């Protein structure tokens, strides 16, 4: 890929001093311009430029966070096989660039809502590893107190609205959040993520219609990993150009394995949504694992395809190459970083394993909010308790 440098970096001196530290150029915000791997394809709008402004700090942050996400998902894989995580576990490895690029383009006031493949987005929104692993293992310290599970991660203070099991339903919710943002004049946008499978749900088009009518700051992001569980996109959709499916709503197709392309597209989309209303982004991405842990992922696609994508388009490899070619770190330093990340994840898992399960009384909490001070335990309460405010 073509690389161009805006300014020459004058701090080649800095490197040897900080070899003892991992973050030796963490304070360097020298701008770097990076070209995206592919041009954007646009529908009813002008595509943004291929040159993305970044900095060395951002580059290393990207690498670190994506490596953390990757390691977290692989650790979840082992935990699932050890039967510590039960039920459904949908892993995001391969798609990290979407989460990272989106976070880099927006603030915590902008809302994100997604379906069940939410572990990494939760992490990107500021969630901690401890909360993730506790929730996955159903412990008290989990982000939803152990009552949600893998598919129900939420973080209200960073405007992360989950975490939904029934795909498609989160898109009207997302448009509703965008409506509330417009109602309260917040100058923020909502990213409603869905997959290529859920893109065929009718409620998406209903919600898009309303969003376009009312000029809501809603951005619909299709994370197209080309397979809806076991069904390839060409078998499920007559028109697999998901970015064009908005018809009257503009769209943009983005290489979802390139974190900088994602960042550029999200920034563009945010500006568009605040001014002109909804827009659709299609992220061309790929998942290495199967649909969930019970799916080997090889019955509907070949192993060659998976390893091919991993070799040519892996998002972390791409960032690694950029880091190395810009001399931001050496191979060894990156390897040390990965080792440190591994340790961090292992520590979080150990800490989560020590966490207790929820108390039995938690079965009945949070079914209702305490309205006028009454508790209820089902339709035939044996005893009505009233606590006056």
């Amino acid at each position, binding site marked *: 890929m073509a690389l161009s440098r805006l300014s020459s970096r004058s701090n080649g001196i800095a490197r040897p001093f900080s070899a003892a530290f991992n973050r030796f150029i963490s304070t360097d915000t020298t701008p770097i311009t990076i070209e995206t791997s592919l041009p954007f394809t646009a529908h009813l709008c002008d595509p943004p430029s291929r040159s993305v402004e970044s900095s060395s700090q951002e580059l290393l942050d990207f690498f670190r966070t994506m490596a953390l996400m990757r390691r977290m998902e692989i650790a979840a894989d082992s935990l699932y096989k050890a039967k510590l995580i039960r039920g459904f576990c949908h892993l995001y490895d391969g798609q990290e660039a979407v989460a990272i690029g989106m976070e880099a383009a927006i603030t915590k006031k902008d*809302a994100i*809502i997604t379906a069940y493949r939410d572990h990494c987005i939760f992490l990107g929104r500021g969630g901690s590893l401890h909360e993730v692993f506790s929730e996955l293992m159903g412990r008290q310290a*989990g982000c*939803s107190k*152990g*009552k*949600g*599970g893998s598919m*129900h991660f*939420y*973080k*209200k203070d960073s405007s992360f*609205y*989950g*975490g*939904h*099991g*029934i795909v498609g*339903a989160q*898109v*009207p*919710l*997302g*448009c*509703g*959040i965008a*409506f*509330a943002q*417009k*109602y*309260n004049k917040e100058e923020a946008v909502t990213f409603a993520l869905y997959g290529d499978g859920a893109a065929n749900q*009718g*409620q998406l088009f*209903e*919600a898009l*219609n*309303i969003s376009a*009518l009312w000029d809501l700051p809603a951005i619909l992001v299709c994370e197209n990993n080309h397979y809806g569980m076991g069904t390839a996109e060409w078998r499920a959709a007559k028109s697999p150009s998901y970015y064009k499916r908005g018809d009257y709503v503009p769209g943009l197709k983005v290489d979802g394995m390139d974190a900088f392309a994602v960042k550029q597209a999200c920034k563009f989309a945010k500006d568009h949504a605040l001014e002109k209303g909804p827009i659709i982004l299609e992220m061309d991405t790929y998942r290495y694992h199967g649909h969930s842990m019970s799916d080997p992922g090889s019955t509907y696609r070949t192993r060659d395809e998976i390893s091919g994508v991993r070799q040519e388009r892996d998002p972390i490899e791409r960032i690694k190459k950029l880091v190395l070619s810009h001399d931001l770190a050496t191979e060894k330093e990156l390897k040390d970083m990965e080792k440190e990340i591994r340790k961090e994840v292992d520590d979080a898992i150990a800490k989560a394993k020590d966490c207790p399960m929820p108390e039995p009384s938690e079965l009945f*909490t*949070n*079914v*209702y*909010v*305490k*309205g*006028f*001070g*009454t508790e*209820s335990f*089902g*339709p*035939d*309460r*044996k*005893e*009505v*308790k*009233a606590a*006056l*405010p």
Partner: protein
Amino acid sequence: MSSIIHGAGAATALSTFNPVDSKKLTNLSVRSQRYIVAGSEASKKKSFGSALTVRHSQKLIPNAVATKEADTSTSTGHELLLFEALQEGLEEEMDRDANVCVMGEDVGHYGGSYKVTKGLADKFGDLRVLDTPICENAFTGMAIGAAMTGLRPVIEGMNMGFLLLAFNQISNNCGMLHYTSGGQFTIPVVIRGPGGVGRQLGAEHSQRLESYFQSIPGIQMVACSTPYNAKGLMKAAIRSENPVILFEHVLLYNLKEKIPDEDYICNLEEAEMVRPGEHITILTYSRMRYHVMQAAKTLVNKGYDPEVIDIRSLKPFDLHTIGNSVKKTHRVLIVEECMRTGGIGASLTAAINENFHDYLDAPVMCLSSQDVPTPYAGTLEEWTVVQPAQIVTAVEQLCQ
């Protein structure tokens, strides 16, 4: 004092309705100060009045019964129809809290298909009274999403039956989000709309859907039956932090009643004592209340003394009021418009049998509407729902 006046026959619309004879309600004066149903001991009831503290700055008038107060002057209060009472409640809440908005089909410029939102769009603007396209699934989802951020939308289903299209949103998102997020998000929506068997509207527009929603954990269901409790329940539902489904009835929109001028709300979880009695407890809600009261007139002439309770709260049941009544009369008849199979009456029968079995002298009898799609022909439609004559027969049978 005036007694209950009803139009002749169940098929005519009830246009005038006078409140219950207050002479018969002297034993309820103790309850007039009670705001929330207390614990199971009767002694707790009397001490409640002094312990009342009000959450909001306005004075809340806790009065569960539509009655003329004997001590206050009866010249205060204004007369209006049920749909106007709903509109008044909605308007007052929208004035009070800028986060309340209304979403539904034709609620704005058209004024609402049953005129409940008439005039609101002119007063509050297009951003607070929102005309949606026909997409129940999407706009219910949008209201729920907006509620997650703190808005308080009131979703109108033009007919409750249309909300079946939004069942996924109501069940999975509305009911469950508070739980699955570990308490992070609250969903203070109100879902309201007319339902029930109307005047030959056809099968799809005459659905009785309370039974479909009753198993959803996390929601509350209430049914209004008089202008007084319609306004009170509407306001309470909007102020509640839980999602509330408010069931209205197509045939009750033109009921007229005098309601207080002051701000008041009705407790969402409380049942209403319509007519106290000694021989049998009749539990009912919504439109069937009027059939029951009509049958009560016949029963009184025949020498029976039925106690009629409008349960109002369909989920959760007010087992305190119901239980006290069962302990007094030992016989229960449930009269409802819901379907027989898996309906509200079925759940209530189970609840009463489980909790108050020792107090029953006869099996609980439940009269529900037939398990058929509502036919169009007038005579057939009449026989789909419970008629006063059937209620009289059932009471006679139970009280043998």
